[in-house]
């Protein structure tokens, strides 16, 4: 079994070693111990001031509690439940109904200084979630919006997550970690925050012309506002505003609907029949079609577009990696930095074709520096199963059958043998 790139990187990490000079250790350990000492001193100083604070707090809290009660009475805030102006529902009703609902669907809008996203979210408790991307814009993200998945399905029962990329008909499946279902988790966290106990009933509020009862929860650096339907006591909109390191983040869940019938097919972990499926952990690719030499040709053809009309230095093999070859490979990677999703997939299909060849296929890549269109210079070859001749791909991407003895002489190949 051939190793995936991830497995190879893992192996390299495992074999990586550093030898650290004791001067480095002295510097780091010395500074860290100094910092630990300083922290100890501050701790003992603050312990002294804490005693003073405890004494003061006892006096202050008595006055503060009295003041809060007076303000509450003046503003008419009802901390127990119910509302100041006769709204018919209490927070406890909202909590109870949200907990009882088995399905929920909403439009999720997120906005921060560098990102804006709009998703349609469906949750079927306790296992399934699905988000459909409606709009996505990120200044910081390396991926353009075209390369963003359009559908993400989480299944906590299978511990899997499936992403669909309709533009290239690619599906990616991966483990969803130990306690999976990102959307379900976010929703569970939200329900937990609802139980924070700090909610305020702000009374009747119009939301887009609709009557609602509004509640507000303040927690840490977060403010949650819930607009609930006075008839059903279920939220119709929830806004979460938080601030982290000066960055204001706003989550808005709008058009919320509960307990609607959702088709389980929406949460199917089987991609559409015409999609390719890639396993994120192993990079194994399943295609709904047979991988043929046509895919290899298309994969090879990607590179001259980005590499000044030449084929890449290595493609699933090639000249042994000297320092010079390594530098050339890395220069190639730099040039394909912004390749399109389609080209990336073509290259992947080409690689997958080579990976599925039997071990004795004798695949060789000799396309380094070959110009696209060169009819006489080979780029790669392999021996199909049961064949006595080799299939040789040339610079014009034509393929010819060549006898083993007629294969071109490649000095480094002889050295390798």
């Amino acid at each position: 079994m051939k190793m995936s790139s991830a497995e190879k990187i893992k192996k390299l990490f495992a074999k990586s070693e550093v030898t650290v000079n004791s001067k480095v250790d002295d510097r780091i350990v010395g500074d860290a111990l100094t910092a630990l000492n300083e922290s100890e001193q501050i701790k003992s100083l603050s312990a002294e001031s804490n005693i003073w604070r405890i004494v003061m707090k006892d006096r202050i809290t008595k006055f503060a509690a009295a003041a809060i009660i007076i303000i509450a009475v003046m503003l008419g805030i009802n901390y127990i439940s119910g509302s100041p102006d006769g709204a018919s529902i209490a927070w406890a009703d909202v909590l109870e109904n949200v907990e009882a609902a088995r399905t929920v669907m909403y439009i999720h809008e997120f906005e921060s200084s560098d990102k804006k996203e709009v998703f349609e979210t469906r949750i079927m408790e306790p296992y399934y979630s699905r988000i459909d991307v409606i709009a996505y814009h990120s200044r910081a993200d390396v991926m353009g919006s075209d390369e963003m998945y359009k559908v993400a399905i989480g299944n906590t029962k299978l511990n899997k997550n499936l992403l669909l990329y309709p533009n290239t008909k690619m599906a990616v499946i991966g483990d969803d970690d130990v306690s999976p279902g990102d959307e379900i988790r976010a929703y569970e966290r939200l329900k937990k925050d609802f139980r924070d106990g700090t909610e305020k009933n702000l009374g009747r509020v119009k939301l887009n012309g609709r009557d609602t009862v509004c509640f507000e929860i303040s927690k840490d650096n977060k403010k949650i506002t819930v607009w609930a339907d006075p008839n059903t006591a279920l939220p119709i909109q929830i806004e979460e505003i938080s601030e982290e390191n000066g960055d204001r983040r706003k989550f808005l869940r709008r058009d919320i609907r509960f307990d609607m019938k959702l088709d389980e097919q929406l949460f199917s972990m089987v991609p559409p029949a015409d999609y390719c499926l890639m396993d994120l952990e192993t990079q194994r690719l399943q295609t709904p079609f047979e991988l043929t030499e046509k895919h290899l040709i298309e994969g090879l053809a990607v590179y001259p577009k980005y590499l000044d009309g030449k084929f890449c230095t290595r493609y699933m093999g090639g000249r042994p990696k000297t320092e010079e070859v390594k530098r050339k490979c890395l220069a190639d990677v730099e040039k394909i930095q912004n390749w399109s999703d389609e080209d990336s997939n073509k290259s992947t299909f080409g690689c997958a074709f080579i990976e599925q060849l039997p071990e004795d296929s004798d695949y060789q890549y000799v396309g380094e520096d070959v110009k696209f269109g060169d009819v006489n210079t080979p780029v790669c070859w392999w021996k199909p199963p049961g064949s006595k001749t080799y299939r040789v791909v040339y610079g014009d991407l034509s393929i010819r059958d060549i006898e083993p003895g007629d294969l071109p002489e490649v000095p480094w190949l002889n050295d390798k043998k």
Partner: protein
Amino acid sequence: MVDRLLVTKCKQGSRDALLRIYEKYRDSLMILAIALSHDVSLAEDAVHDVFVAFAQNVASFKLTGSLKAYLARCVANRVRDLMRTNRSRAKALSPEQACSVERDLNEPSLLIACNEELRLLSSALAELPHEQREVIALHIHGQMRFRVIAKSLGISVNTVKGRYRYGIQKLRSILNGEI
């Protein structure tokens, strides 16, 4: 000694516990920092800063998961900050001066030596955008789950998976054979 106990002792001011945490994770964190930055000098600074900050704040530190993953996350964050600072500094310098700001792995260092595998790994990762490199290194070397990486970077778990996939895909064809 288990990490939780080491942290508790450290919180009580034990110099020995701090030293043992450093010895336990130094190499792993240094490898991570080098893989992320492709710069031994910057990697040393990142690991230094993380241990000093850890010692400074250990009194209020609560270990909720793996200490290794926590330190790896801190190193990744610090590397990102230092690289950003270096880039802005390099922008303000002439090209000749700017070249001297980064000291990459091919230059011999008297203080930290990398073996061939680490050099190869770091060179390969260096050609990926930092965002993709970070996710690959944290997931594979830091053994951090995508969800944890997402939380620490403040992005969605699916974006993390996307970065991972794109990074791996780029490395796949060209670097195949050797790594």
